[in-house]
């Protein structure tokens, strides 16, 4: 908004003949446009904005999702969110040092069950979505060549306090992928690490997978 105002000022000043002032203001506006790489296509901010807007619109326009239909919800997540999330990394980091003790089959099963568990977290959130619910990007700071960044957003509700939600993202071959989420100051991976190690030390990797799977089955039925 600020940038736009400056451009308007610059143009009107130019008409009045203050060429030098207009030039400097235009330069400022250009610098502003440069700084607003936030919205540039391919940036992590643009991706987060696109995904969150898509998901919000999908929820708002689909009563089946809003009423918490698990099948529709899983479908929505698969279509709109999954392509932009590195669940494998999320699971690996949550499992921490136990990840390497798992066989590839166990790793695969763990990723699958943990993913379903995280989708279930969504089921509680979607019922809170109202028509006026909107996601706003907050300014983020990171070097231009960063490959591990945090995009900050806030979810605004018609009633109730705004909820800050941050996305931790990593750049890989195919572009930016989300691998950790922070809601109200709580990072998702960090919040599962203790529970994972607790389950693994009690029943091994298979115990953890079984425990996740049991909870997931209860939800799907």
């Amino acid at each position, binding site marked *: 908004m600020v940038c736009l105002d400056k451009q308007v000022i610059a143009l009107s000043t130019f008409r009045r003949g203050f060429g030098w002032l207009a030039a400097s203001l235009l330069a400022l506006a250009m610098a502003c446009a440069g700084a607003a790489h936030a919205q540039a296509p391919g940036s992590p901010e643009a991706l987060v904005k696109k995904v969150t807007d898509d998901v919000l619109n999908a929820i708002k326009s689909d009563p089946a999702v809003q009423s918490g239909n698990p099948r529709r919800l899983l479908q929505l997540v698969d279509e709109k969110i999954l392509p932009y999330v590195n669940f494998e990394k999320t699971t690996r980091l949550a499992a*921490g040092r136990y*990840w*390497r003790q798992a066989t590839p089959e166990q790793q695969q099963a763990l990723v699958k069950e943990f993913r379903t568990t995280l989708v279930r977290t969504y089921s509680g959130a979607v019922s809170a979505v109202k028509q006026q619910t909107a996601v706003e990007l907050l300014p983020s700071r990171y070097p231009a060549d960063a490959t591990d960044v*945090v995009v900050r957003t806030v979810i605004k509700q018609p009633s109730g306090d705004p909820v800050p939600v941050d996305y931790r993202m990593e750049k890989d071959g195919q572009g930016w992928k989300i691998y950790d989420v922070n809601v109200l*100051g709580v990072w998702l*991976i960090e919040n599962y690490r203790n*529970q994972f190690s607790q389950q693994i030390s009690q029943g091994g990797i298979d115990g953890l997978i079984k425990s996740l799977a049991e909870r997931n089955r209860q939800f799907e039925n």
Partner: protein
Amino acid sequence: MNKNILALVLAAGLTACASVPEGAPPDPRDPLEGFNRSVYKFNDTVDRAVLKPVAQGYVNVVPSPVRSCVRNIFANVGDVMSALNSFLQNRAHDGINTTFRVLFNTTMGVFGCFDLATENGLPRNRADFGQTLGVWGVGSGPYLVLPFLGPSTIRDAGGTAVDFLADPVAVRNIDNVPVRNSVYGLRIVNARANLLEVGNLLDQVALDPYAFTRDAYLQRRASLIRGARSEDAELPDYSLPDYEDDDEPADAASASGKPKQ
């Protein structure tokens, strides 16, 4: 009243230790885990048996505009201590905003019944004395689950006590005992009703609801205090120093998850 609570705490304490999951590595932030788990279980039982059904009944019977008014009035009263604590935390800007919120909502908002301040772009900014102590540099101390009140720490429990005693518009200033008790009751029911939307989410998503609640509480409090000190959020470092059986170096590098900034 106090005697009853003490008895409940003691009863809860007696069953302690048995409930700590076997074989799990103890968390250095939670040396009182045995006791805490017992109180957690007690709170959960009280909630399922009494609080939640009563709150559900309240939501079913009382129309939404009235509940919203009740919620806003209690929140407006709570804003008084938030304003005081914001000043104590050297956040004059938030303190002034919150003071203005209280003045605006108490007058134009009919004793806080309507949260006009939020509607006019002045959102609520909570602050409590536990947080103030944290901003002043006091460590959180061990994690502590309080009977009825839920997750806390040694520091935050002290902060809660100070907030309770220092509150100039506290419910305990009401002289008429039946009225006072009714207001207390309404406040508890209101607080629980506000959480009904969350539903059984905790049971669904947590492998161990106790650990989930504890870790979330400690993370949230730390982030609130960092925010109040206007420190940049620290990113969790998921890197692993101890890869003895490192046979896939490429994978280990990506598994480190170290921010490259």
